[in-house]
């Protein structure tokens, strides 16, 4: 299914913490279509391919990256539903080490 179709043109506002902005030409917020976090990530990666390695691991959200939707830290990761005009943040883990 094409990105945006499942979302019914819902547009969430995605905030990327500053470390990720090197992959988005410095953009801090992006309007991305999607009804779930997975669709948002797919949309982000389509626009900015290097984000995939920063956000995705074995098809799921990168361990150590938390996703916060409308102020609440998700427990569903990629499956988390996103409402129209939701504010979505990707944040680094409390433990800060790189895995590689």
């Amino acid at each position: 299914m094409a990105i945006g179709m499942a979302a019914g043109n819902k547009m969430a506002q995605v905030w990327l913490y500053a470390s990720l902005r090197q992959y988005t030409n410095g953009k801090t917020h992006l309007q991305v279509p999607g009804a779930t976090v997975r669709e948002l990530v797919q949309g982000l990666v389509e626009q900015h391919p290097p984000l995939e390695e920063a956000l995705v691991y074995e098809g799921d959200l990168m361990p150590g990256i938390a996703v916060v939707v409308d102020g609440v830290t998700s427990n569903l990761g990629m499956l988390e539903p996103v409402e129209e005009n939701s504010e979505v943040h990707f944040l680094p883990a409390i433990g800060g080490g790189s895995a590689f």
Partner: protein
Amino acid sequence: MLDYKPNMVLSQKEYQVIGTRPRRHDALDKVTGFARYSADIHLPGMLHARILRSPYAHARIKAIDTSKAQTLPGVKAVLTGKDFPKLEARIADTGEGGPANVIFLSNNCMAQDKVVYRGHAIAAVAATDPVIAEEALSLIKVDYEVLPPVLDGREAIKDGAPILHESLSPGRPRPADQKPTNIANRIEFKLGDLEEGFKQADIVVEHETHTKAVHQGYIEPQSATVMWGKDNNLTIWSSSQGQFMVRDQTASILDMPVSRIKAIPMEIGGGFGGKLLVYLEPVAALLSKKTGGLPVKVTINRTEVFEGTGPTSGTHIKVKLGATKEGRLVAAEAHLLYEAGGFPGSPVGGGARCMMAGYDIPNAYIEGLDVVINLPRSAAYRAPGSPASAFAMETAIDELCRKLNMDPLEFRLLNAAKEGTRQVTGPVFSKIGFLETLQAAKDHPHTHAKLSGPYRGRGIASGYWPNASGPASACASVNSDGTISLVEGSPDIGGTRTTAAMHVAEVLGLPVEKVKPTVGDTDSIGFTSLTGGSGVTYKTGIACYEAAQDVKRQLIQRASTIWNVQPGDVEYLKDGSLQHKSDPNLRMTFAQLAGRLNNTGGPIVGRGTVNPRQNGNAFATHVVDLEVDPDTGKVTILRYTALQDAGKAIHPTYVEGQMQGGAVQGIGWALNEEYFYNNEGRMMNASFLDYRMPTSLDMPMIDTVIVEVENPGHPFGVRGVGEVPIVPPMAAINNALYDAIGVRLNELPMTPAKVLAALKAAQSTNGHRNGRR
């Protein structure tokens, strides 16, 4: 003056069990010595293992000769890093410790080609007797190529510094032209326009702080007993902050399915984050396998705990704050360097995320670096990362308040984050209780008490911790005698077994003594994430609440069957009895119904499996009075008050205990504790005799004030309470010390020698004796 009305001050809801102070279920076993810890395991044919550790902080292993050790009578197995499975790089989630490469996890248990800290495990021996195992270690010959160590993160990031690992990169994806570096991760947060923010500032302060590695101070050293069964299944008895964490990390390191491992949680003699990583279980497992399945126990001593397991990180932090002359924070900038030890994984993420969370700051920038150095790999320690960054932030705020000539509580009340505040890291806060803790501090008699006399000072500081959640499971079985057997999955560090039981008792209207809680092993209860993040009473509490609701639903169904009525006609009363809504003659107590289950449809077992996500945020404010001995520099804590938003205190005594314990650990961190290394990376104080932790004789009574701003994400309003009380003490004491002597120390611990030197320097330059406002 506040322009905001607190969303709620104190919980007014009435409960039967929640908020009471029953005796903990494990009290008798604990005080009589019957509680069984991991070192208490004794099995037939059990062998004892000892570990050979590196005498060098940085060295390449050229060869290991174990031949003589293997021939020593009584030796049954010898293990080196070459016996560990060769792993592909893969990420394992270590909970509060963050993500970790399984290769690093494995190498931290036993070095492969290189040692990266003194105390790094090199080899292990299993023998019939611990003395024989110890003797065998002395027969192992290791040929090292000694390398120069780097022991300070600031040196480690310089060009030409010795490199620990060739593969590290501060960012992902790893650039193709990435040079070898000791920076394992770099994170940044930006909000607003920093430059513009500082232009708006009338007052600017700049500040730099340094902290050393400190130990969690758990009393019980790590111990593990493992048996590799004939069916190739493993049984592990160990003390940890998560039996599922032990199972999963061991499975990753040994490259085997989790279903082949049964991890049995023993009682735990303290953890505070230090028992979130496995060190011994894979070692004992492989030794057991080599012996054909004999059980192998390995227990380490205190020196090994200090040298071979993880303390928290040392840190170096620069902070710059700007405020208007009215006291409004308008800009903040911070650069954090956290020393990870020999492998990546410092809590710099926690430090960066927490540092400015308490304040409404429109323009901010935070940079955090995770840097490897040749010291033991850091581990989580109570609110990992936050205490060090709070030390920098809260002392800088104190500086700012002095320049503004503004009361520090009024400053915080003016700038405090509240519901709707956007954090510097991005998300907007939901309902939080920071303002309420500040107001409680402002109202407290301690704040208004006169403090007189020379060399005495008062300081305040606040702290934040986001709390964590995770999956949790609970199983409540109704017994025929009217009791409940409750099995849950969270190892009990702070009395959580009883708070879990209290959730069930409250729902079912039973005395808590009627609920018998047990922490299950990995084959006896569903997956439960580790005991950390101040999350147990929250997540496992909700699992227990759901299990009890499940029991209640089934009891109503059963009563309706017995009475031949519809379930909707039956109600469950607060006293734990059931009755027909319109026929008062149809009534049974919980115990009466429990006694009839087997003949009326079978047992009733309630289940709760959850992964709740509104874990609530925790804020604390501490007030401290102290006195400095001008002749020795010794600091004496005169009075200490800790105030904290607990959401809803399920068992107030345990909440108070957490607040007091956190404060005491923070006081030790502030005044005494540090890993003291020589230039070769050897820890010079690797015993509790020389690593000076506070005792009861050093402490005054810690006064506590529980503020209850209910968390809407928990049925009773719980927020995590265990970690945030260690966040404010270092800054509060530093601020009080400045108040007492007029000198700002910027390094922990603030030992008598440092205080005395600072006092003399101040007296010789400006005659300052007292910095009181």
